[in-house]
């Protein structure tokens, strides 16, 4: 991480040097004042259209010509806000912005998060809603991809029963052997712990709180929408083991997550 940061800093520095040498001295002074150098690209298509916003439907407000230099300001999803030399700002789709070159003449190497690249994306966050037995569940999930076909996840959730409430935390492994489809099946397994508490109004005995460990095996389907949004349907067979008894439960959930 530190190494890549250092490396990127070095490349930034080199990049600034290139920019400065190809521009006037006045620009050099400006570049010195800002800590992070700006990304400047040159249009190679006959024209490039700027939209008024980052999304479908936003109208074209400006057109840039071939050989015009543009500055990349910010990124939101797969859209980039750019400014031309007259400081006219607008949004350009990633696919269109890829049709530009760096001042060095090399193709613009933009960071991308696209469906085909999701395997290279390491982190993911999301949540899942569902049912375990008769109780509803709401779970927060954070995960990362260990290998191209295995993901590891940590989850923390709440369980809402009629006479009993619980919280749950666990670790999951996700095997996703097929990767080229929008709908991809997966197999999941995991371990965790659930803490149960009897609701206060029903609490008559002493042992109103207890723990149980669980393991599960399950499976489901991931549906990849757009570049980095996943909808997941999952079914689990959960084995709960308490102090002196065990229980089998079936659980299902629908989850939404995004990787970055």
């Amino acid at each position: 991480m530190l190494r890549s940061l250092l490396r990127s800093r070095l490349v930034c520095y080199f990049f600034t040097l290139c920019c400065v040498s190809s521009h006037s001295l006045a620009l050099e002074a400006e570049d010195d004042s800002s800590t992070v150098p700006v990304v400047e690209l040159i249009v190679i298509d006959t024209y490039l259209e700027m939209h008024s916003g980052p999304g479908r439907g936003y109208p074209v407000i400006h057109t840039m010509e071939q050989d015009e230099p543009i500055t990349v300001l910010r990124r939101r999803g797969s859209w980039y806000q750019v400014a031309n030399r007259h400081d006219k700002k607008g949004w350009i789709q990633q696919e269109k912005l890829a049709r530009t070159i760096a001042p060095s003449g090399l193709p613009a190497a933009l960071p991308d998060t696209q469906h085909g690249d999701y395997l290279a994306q390491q982190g993911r966050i999301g949540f899942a809603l569902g049912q375990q037995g008769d109780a509803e569940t709401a779970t927060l999930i954070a995960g990362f991809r260990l290998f191209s076909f295995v993901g590891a996840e940590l989850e923390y959730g709440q369980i809402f029963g009629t006479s009993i409430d619980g919280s749950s935390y666990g670790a999951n492994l996700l095997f996703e052997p097929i990767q080229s489809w929008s709908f991809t099946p997966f197999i999941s397994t995991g371990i965790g712990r659930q803490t149960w508490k009897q609701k206060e109004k029903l609490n008559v005995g002493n042992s109103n709180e207890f723990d149980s460990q669980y393991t599960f095996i399950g499976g489901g389907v991931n549906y990849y929408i757009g570049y980095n949004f996943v909808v997941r349907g999952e079914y689990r067979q959960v084995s709960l083991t308490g102090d002196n008894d065990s229980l089998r439960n079936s659980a299902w959930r629908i989850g939404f997550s995004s990787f970055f």
Partner: protein
Amino acid sequence: MANRFQQLLLAALFSTSLTSISASVLAEDGDVEINPIIVVEPDNKQREAYEAQIDSEFFEVGAYVGILAIEDFGSSAVLGVKASFHATEDFFLQANYGQAEAGQSTAEYYFGDDDISIIKDRDYKYYNLLVGYNLFPGETFVTQDLTFNSAFYLVAGAGNTDFADDNHFTITVGSGYRVILKDWLTVNVDFRDHSFETEIGPKTKRTHNLEFSTGLTAFF
């Protein structure tokens, strides 16, 4: 992926055009030398550099204030915080946490005094996890010269409501309107229904708690 292909294509185009120029120059001497095509790979170092330089904004964080109608217990002011993750131009994930204090029910108002109340715990706390869809992205024209980007969006999800000494699994659906005041600052107006089943004596009843709120959020 398409991006990478385009880059490769461009690189190939450049190198072929270079070779054709050099070939045509040399052809004048009657001696044709064909240079090998050099494929310029997309520069991964440059990609990392760009990633560090371009300000990627996926998170939107803010606070809101509004009115929450708690079924049977009047309407109260609600305060909350929210965080959104914009996954694509269409979809976002949102987490909300809000707090309100329930007022008196009509029964309490008429027949009760301070000693008699239907519920002890009057703190209404909730969180929810929602998925949002920007249904109508567009522009809001305030005057002829003042235009803001905006979006009408739908949200749905679930979470917990901690009310009357009990946790309730709560389904939340709603719609909202987001106006982007500056590149980083937005103002939101939200209308949401928080629905959960509550126990009154031996019976259960599904309540609908409507919330109307407005807030500010910042992209970063």
